[in-house]
C-alpha cells in the first residue's frame, strides 16, 4: 500500500533523514522506534505530504504522493497545538467529518461515539483548554478514529497519558486496526509498546535518521496486556529491539559512525544489556 524508497530530508543544511526504504502492506500495523531527534516526526510529515522530502519518493496505492493524500488521518505529537481552542471538544472531533459529506447532527453523533471510545464522552461540551494534557491527547486520537481513514499516522500518541489509560488506548488501537482494517504507522520511543502493538517493528538510527533494522513480530494477532507481555517471544523481541535501539545510542557519540563501528557498538550493548529489563 505504502512504498517509501530512498527518502531523505534536510532542513536547510541539516540532514535529518537519509536513504529510508520502507514498505507497508494493506492493513498492516507498523511501529517505528528510534531515539528522539532521529527524524521520526519528519518521516511522518513526509508520508503525510505536509513536507516535500528533499530526496526519494513516497508511493501510496501505486501513485507517488504530491501533497496530502486522500483519506489520511494524522495524530500529531503536539496534540495540544493541533486542537482548535475556539471549538468544543466535540466540534474538534467532528470538524474533519465535513469531508465525509455528513450532516451536522450525524457528524456530532459520530464525534460523541469516538469520544466515548477513548473514555471522554463527558468532556464533549468542554473546550480543549479545559482538559488535562492526557485528555487532550485522547481527543486528538478520537478525532483520527472518528474519521475512519484508510491510512493512519500516529506520532507518539500516548506520550502523556497515564499507564492505565495508555494500555486501554493501545488495546483500542489494536481493536480498531482489526475491525476497520486500517493501515497504521505508529511512532513511539517505547520499546515495549512497539513490540506489543506492531505487526512489524522498524528501528531507526540517528544522525542522519535511517532504517537500522526491521523485525517481524511473531506474536499471535490477538494480544492482551498481561498475557502477551509475559510471553517468552515478547520478552525476546523486546530485548532484540532494545539492543537495536541502544546500538543507535552508542554509535551517535562518534560523529561519523560507520557500519563497522555500529556492529562493535551493538556487541558492547549486547554484552551489558540485562535481558527483559526496560
Amino acid at each position, binding site marked *: 500500500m505504502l512504498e517509501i524508497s530512498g527518502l531523505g530530508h534536510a532542513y536547510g543544511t541539516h540532514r535529518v533523514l537519509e536513504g529510508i526504504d520502507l514498505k507497508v502492506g494493506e492493513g498492516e500495523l507498523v511501529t517505528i522506534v528510534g531515539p528522539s531527534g532521529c527524524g521520526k516526526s519528519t518521516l511522518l*510529515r513526509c508520508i*503525510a505530504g*505536509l513536507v516535500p522530502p528533499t530526496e526519494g519518493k513516497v508511493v501510496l496505492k501505486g501513485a507517488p504522493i504530491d501533497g*496530502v493524500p*486522500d*483519506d*489520511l*488521518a*494524522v495524530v*500529531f505529537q*503536539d496534540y495540544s*497545538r*493541533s486542537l*482548535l*481552542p*475556539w471549538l468544543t471538544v466535540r466540534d474538534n472531533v467532528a*470538524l*474533519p467529518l465535513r*469531508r465525509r459529506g455528513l450532516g451536522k447532527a450525524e457528524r456530532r453523533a459520530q464525534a460523541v461515539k469516538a469520544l466515548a471510545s477513548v473514555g471522554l464522552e463527558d468532556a464533549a461540551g468542554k*473546550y480543549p*483548554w*479545559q482538559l488535562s494534557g492526557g485528555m487532550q491527547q485522547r481527543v486528538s486520537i478520537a478525532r483520527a478514529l472518528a*474519521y475512519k481513514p484508510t491510512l493512519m499516522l500516529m506520532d507518539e500518541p500516548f506520550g502523556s497519558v497515564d499507564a492505565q489509560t495508555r494500555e486501554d488506548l493501545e488495546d483500542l488501537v489494536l481493536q480498531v486496526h482489526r475491525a476497520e482494517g486500517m493501515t497504521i504507522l505508529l511512532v513511539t520511543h517505547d520499546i515495549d509498546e512497539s513490540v506489543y502493538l506492531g505487526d512489524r517493528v522498524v528501528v531507526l538510527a540517528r544522525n542522519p535518521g535511517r532504517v537500522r533494522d526491521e523485525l517481524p513480530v511473531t506474536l499471535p494477532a490477538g494480544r492482551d496486556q498481561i498475557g502477551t507481555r509475559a510471553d517468552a517471544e515478547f520478552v525476546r523481541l523486546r530485548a532484540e529491539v532494545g539492543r537495536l535501539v541502544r546500538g543507535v545510542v552508542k554509535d551517535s557519540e562518534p560523529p561519523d559512525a560507520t557500519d563497522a563501528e555500529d556492529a562493535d557498538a551493538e556487541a558492547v550493548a549486547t554484552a551489558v544489556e540485562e535481558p527483559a529489563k526496560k
Partner: protein
Amino acid sequence: MTPRRILLGAAGAVVVVGVLEAVSRSGLVDETSLPPASTVLKEAGKLAVDREFLVDVGATVREWLLGLLLAVLAAVPLGVLLGSVPLLGTASRALVELCRPVPSVALIPLATLLFSSPAQTNMSLIFYACLWPILVNTLYALRDVDPVAKDTLRAFGSSTPAVLWRVSLPSAAPFIATGVRIAASVALVVLISTELLVGGDNGIGIYLTETQQGGGRTDLMLAGACWAGVLGLLANTALIALERVAFRWHAARVEGIA
C-alpha cells in the same frame, strides 16, 4: 471589572476632581482660564441635553464610525492577503513600515486639497490613521498562526482556503479585534484634531472652537472635552467587553499561560 476596581477607579477620579476644584478656588490660577471642576461638570451636564451640542456629537460619532468601518473593510482583507502570501508580505513590508509612522495630522493639507467637504476630509484622515494598527495586527496575527493547527486541517484533506477560513482567521481574530480597538481610540483623537484644524459645520472639535469665539468660555470648552473623553472611554469599554465575550477561549488560554 471587579467591584473593587470600579470603586478604586471612582475614588481616583473624585480625588483628581477635588484637587482641580481646590486649585481653581484657591486663586492660585485665574478662575476664567481654569474654571473650578464643579463648574465644568455642571456645564457638561447641561450639554448632555443641549440640542446643538448633541448634533455636534452625532456628526463626530458618525464620521468616527464610518471612517473606522472603511478602514476595517480595507485593512482586514489586505492584512489577510499580505499575511498569508509570504511573497506579498515581504514585498510590502518596507512600504508599510514607511507609511505607518506618518502622523495623519501631517496629511491634513493633502486631504483638504483632495476632498471638498470637511466630512470627507475627516473620514479620509481617520481611514489613514486606522488602517495601520488594523493592517499590522492582522498581518502579524496571520503570520503567527500555529503551523501545527494548519497542518492538522491540511492532513485531514482541507484545501488552502478552508484552512484560512477554519484555522487562520479564527485564530487571528482576537488580534484583529485588538487592532480595531486601538484604531478606534486613535481615530477619535485624529478626528477631533482635524475638526479643530480644518473646521466644518458640526462636530465636537467645531464646538470646542466655537466656545473660544467672542470672549471665550473655558468652562464650556472643558465640558465639551469631557464628553470627547467619555466617548473614547465608552468605545473602549464596549470593545473590550465584546472581545471578552467573543474570544473567551483566547482569554482563558492567555490567563492559563500567565
